[in-house]
């Protein structure tokens, strides 16, 4: 027995990089997979609240009602046992591929989010960002850019006029809003001087205006924040930008031929992407896992007397993760609130908002902030 433990410890010690990487990926995956069921429940309950209904509050777990938290589980079981159906006129290969593309890209994208600062295990410092490239959040952008193919493929392969229109709309919409999205984040890149989210978050742990405000991106460039949040809605195909689905005119758009688990895979991917973009907003504009006025380094220093040196980083990271999730939850709430409050844009309005208002505004914002930052750097 002693020998086994020794072997395991030795293995962990020599392969700490690999084990840590797998652990981080697994953690991010667990979070991403939990987002969909919880959000389904939140969405239904909040919709009911807004519409003065009760909503699903019956299905419980182990005899406890728990405000209907068992509902997602019941829904999943129902969807799993539905008939797995491929329409006759569809292009079978791409019909099956489309929901998988959406779900996989959603699950891969979330790996670019820094879940916490770093933990120290056995003398090894582990950066808690699963995918840590030099190109930083461009990775998230790349994944979000690939996300359109799930929708476009679904629309095309269903071989249905409504679905095709939905896919066409989605591809035009995403490509239009991606430009404004990139331009909204550009000022943050030159304000912080980095593309790396961890460095950005570290820069946001300082305070602004003699300690009154935390040094968050939202205070440094509020216009960027507003544009980014708007484009985030468009990129994830959520109301008021869900032209690709548009129940009223396109029945369900690209989803019209889908059912059972394939249909829910689209939602898994969509919710994972919503979470990823919300977490990106949090990291760039709201200080990520940092508590306002109390940086992670200070937190670790504060916790070290209570726990010992290494567990203190674990506890600090856990607190950081909770803070990140709490901040992200604000945006998830916003997504649902907007869905049941705002009417859908017309297609020409959507294009006008993207190209005529958001793009020039983002460009002016970039130029003005570039001038300010340049002057501040010179002095």
């Amino acid at each position: 027995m002693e020998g086994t433990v020794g072997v395991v410890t030795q293995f962990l010690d020599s392969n700490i990089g690999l084990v840590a990487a797998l652990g981080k990926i697994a953690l991010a995956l667990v979070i991403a997979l939990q987002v969909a069921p919880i959000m389904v429940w939140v969405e239904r309950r909040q919709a009911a609240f807004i519409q003065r209904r009760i909503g699903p509050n019956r299905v419980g777990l182990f005899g406890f009602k728990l405000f209907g938290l068992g509902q997602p589980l019941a829904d999943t079981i129902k969807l799993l046992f539905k008939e797995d159906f491929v329409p006759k006129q569809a292009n079978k290969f791409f019909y099956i591929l489309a929901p998988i593309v959406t779900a996989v890209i959603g699950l891969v994208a979330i790996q670019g989010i820094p879940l916490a600062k770093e933990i120290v295990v056995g003398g090894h410092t582990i950066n808690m960002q699963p995918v840590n490239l030099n190109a930083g959040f461009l990775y998230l952008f790349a994944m979000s850019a690939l996300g359109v193919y799930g929708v476009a493929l679904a629309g095309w392969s269903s071989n249905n006029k409504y679905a095709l229109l939905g896919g066409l709309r989605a591809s035009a919409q995403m490509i239009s809003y991606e430009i404004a999205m990139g331009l909204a984040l550009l000022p943050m890149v030159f304000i912080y001087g980095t593309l790396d989210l961890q460095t950005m978050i570290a820069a946001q742990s300082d305070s602004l205006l003699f300690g009154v405000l935390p040094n968050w991106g939202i205070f440094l460039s509020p216009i960027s924040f507003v544009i980014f949040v708007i484009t985030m809605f468009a990129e994830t195909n959520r109301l008021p930008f869900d032209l690709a689905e548009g129940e009223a005119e396109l029945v369900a758009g690209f989803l019209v031929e889908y059912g059972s688990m394939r249909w829910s895979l689209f939602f898994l991917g969509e919710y994972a992407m919503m979470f990823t973009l919300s977490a990106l907003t949090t990291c760039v504009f709201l200080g990520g896992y940092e508590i306002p006025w109390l940086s992670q380094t200070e937190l670790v220093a504060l916790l070290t007397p209570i726990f010992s040196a290494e567990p203190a980083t674990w506890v600090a990271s856990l607190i950081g993760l909770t803070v990140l999730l709490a901040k992200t939850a604000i945006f998830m709430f916003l997504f649902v609130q907007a869905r049941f409050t705002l009417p859908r844009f017309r297609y020409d309005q959507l294009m006008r908002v993207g190209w005529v208002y958001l793009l020039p505004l983002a460009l002016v914002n970039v130029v003005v902030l570039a001038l300010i930052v340049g002057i501040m750097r010179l002095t």
Partner: protein
Amino acid sequence: MDLNFIAFVVMGLAATILSGVMITRRWPVSAAMVLIAVMTLLAGMFGLLEAHFAAAAQIIVYAGAIMVVFVFVMMLLNLPPEELRYGGVTWGEMVLISLGVLVAIVLGTQVGQGLLTQGLESMGYAPGQTPAHAKSLYFAADENVKNVAATMFVDYLWAFELVSFLILAAVIGSIVIAKKRSAENANAA
């Protein structure tokens, strides 16, 4: 065997085979999808070559923008699958292609590699080492994005500006081409 090496070779083989698959597709959309897979694989290869910015740009610009436009047009036209008809290549063209292949093989073999290394050394480059004139400009080796930015906006500033004008011209050109037609169609309808 190095894990990076195996991954690189597998990705390269997959990209080559998939591009072969691509040019034999009957549906345009299938071809576009296979091409996106090829581009993603190439982005992975760029990543292994430590060109992180190139990898990200490859996916964002190529797979995320250019190919979306391709797919959009394919879906808009909604063409029936094409009957594959090979041929139409004359003997003269065949000879030219073979010559090109021959030159490429010569360049690819040790002779060409020797020439390449020699040429590089005469210009002051040593394989795998940052040349002296570049050293002053470059940040640390792992700061790929900063290095790209420094090179692009110092050494290649005029090229960059010219390319931006090219893009502007292309945008205006495509709008003019597309707009004239749609206005006529609107009148006809």
